[in-house]
């Protein structure tokens, strides 16, 4: 059975509740930290660099704004799926106590997916409000970004959790950031269009989930929907289904020690 089914197990919601209860206690600083840095990038590149560049009819900041939603989902989910879950597994005995109760690692993974969906939606929504404040949202379709953020949170949590449950020391998590998520955020179509990139780099970009979700965010925020988006959505859903089970064997293995 895939964790996507287990998402709706009672225990997964309890795992979600646990993470939420813990987060509540430092919610303000968590939000501030997670929003401030990407906001600085957004403003610096959008307004600073954007003053020197235009992209056809569009301004650079208009291009970047919806991309930030994808980036917010990626960062929100990845950060906690890696550092947070690593600590919950190895330092705090959080999962250890869960499996002394009738909870299966599958349900823990499901609960973590729900939790990362929440984080991605929350941090993405804050960005949506901010870019709306700058007048960069042009359609009510943008509201559909919220469920898409949740979906992206789950999708980005999958490899993140797998890495957290796989590595032997916390330092190894940096490999994932340096070799996977940071490059992906650069070539995922957040900051610039990909059509002038070399073909091989475009091909790599096409293989990242960020590229497809940013495509959809951009269309929703600009209100320019087209049938090609269904392809992007299908791509995300298929990859999600394929990766869903990935973290579970690693977690099961660690918890059976």
């Amino acid at each position, binding site marked *: 059975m895939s964790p996507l089914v287990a998402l709706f197990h*009672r*225990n997964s919601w*309890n795992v979600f*509740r*646990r993470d939420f*209860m*813990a987060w509540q*206690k430092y919610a303000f600083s968590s939000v501030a930290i997670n929003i401030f840095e990407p906001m600085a990038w957004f403003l610096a590149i959008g307004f600073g660099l954007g003053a020197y560049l235009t992209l056809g009819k569009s301004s650079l900041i208009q291009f970047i704004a919806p991309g930030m939603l994808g980036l917010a989902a990626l960062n929100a989910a990845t950060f906690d799926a890696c550092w947070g879950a690593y600590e919950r597994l190895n330092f*705090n*005995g*959080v999962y*250890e*106590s*869960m*499996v*002394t*109760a*009738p*909870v*299966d690692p599958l349900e823990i993974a499901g609960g973590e997916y729900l939790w990362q969906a929440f984080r991605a939606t929350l941090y993405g929504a804050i960005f949506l409000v901010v870019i709306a404040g700058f007048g960069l949202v042009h359609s009510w379709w943008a509201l559909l970004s919220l469920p898409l953020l949740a979906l992206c949170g789950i999708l980005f949590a999958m490899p993140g959790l797998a890495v957290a449950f796989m590595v032997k020391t916390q330092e190894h998590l940096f490999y994932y950031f340096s070799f996977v998520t940071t490059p992906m955020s650069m070539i995922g179509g957040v900051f610039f269009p990909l059509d002038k990139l070399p073909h091989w780099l475009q091909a790599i970009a096409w293989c990242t989930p960020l590229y497809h979700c940013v495509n959809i965010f951009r269309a929703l925020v600009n209100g320019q929907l087209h049938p090609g988006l269904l392809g992007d959505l299908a791509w995300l859903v298929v990859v999600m289904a394929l990766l869903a089970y990935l973290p579970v064997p690693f977690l099961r293995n660690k*918890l*059976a*020690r």
Partner: protein
Amino acid sequence: MNGLAVHAHNLCKRYGTFEAVRGIDFDIARQECFGFLGVNGAGKTSTMKMIYCRTTKTSGQLDVLGMDAATHPREIKQRIGVVTQDNALDPELTAAENVMLYAAFFGIRGTAARERCAELLHLMNLEGKERSRIAELSGGMKRRVAIARALVNDPEMLVLDEPTTGLDPQARLAVWQLLLGFRERGITLVLTSHYMEEAARLCDRLVIMDEGRILAEGTPRELIAQYAADDVLELHAVDLSRAPLDGSVRRREQHGDITYLYNDDNTALLARLAQLSIESTRHVARPATLEDVFLNLTGRELTD
């Protein structure tokens, strides 16, 4: 409710190539208190982990509450309570949140969970600490939160890995009283300990483990009779090599300067030594305890 609480036959646990548990047999009856004693690394925790279905056996047979531990972990966990060696409390949550979250995993929610939580924290003498974060509690309080949490599903059996390690004498006494209370109520207790006095007081039966094997099994009284004697006389720096004591000494151990004489009556033995004009600069005459059994079986020296 008849049958055994736990039945283990030729139970083995390997980590990689290392054999932590090497083919042990034991039966734990319902409603008894059963102890596992042994030096560090003897395999106690590994055995506990198999019993509470945290890890699976490598080979052998293990039934818990009449169910195969390999195939029915969820059903078993539903009916037992577990206190792990390191408490495994969630440091980011409060005492009450820890208990309530655990209750939710057993399907106890809402008002029922709140009432159960209040009741258990009251039982554990933790009133006023409900809203304290785990990090703000003392070692003894954390232990009691962990025990409260383990009771949330009204378990038939409690598995406690070193329930009193690191506690001060008062806290230890409090835990003993609680555990004796549970035993009165008919809860099967399975525990490990490094404290012989604790085992002697609490356990109906116990085993002594060493290097993954069971060396001895029985009631505390049986073990003392079999592996020690009624009395022990500890003599300091004496030479007994030519003393004709064989009739009155059941067992003799030499450890450094100290000679341990296991016998049935210290007064008689002391009189006999006086007759032979054997004087020790210092001697201790005391009844034999489980500690002697343990040290006789596992050696008085610190190994590894």
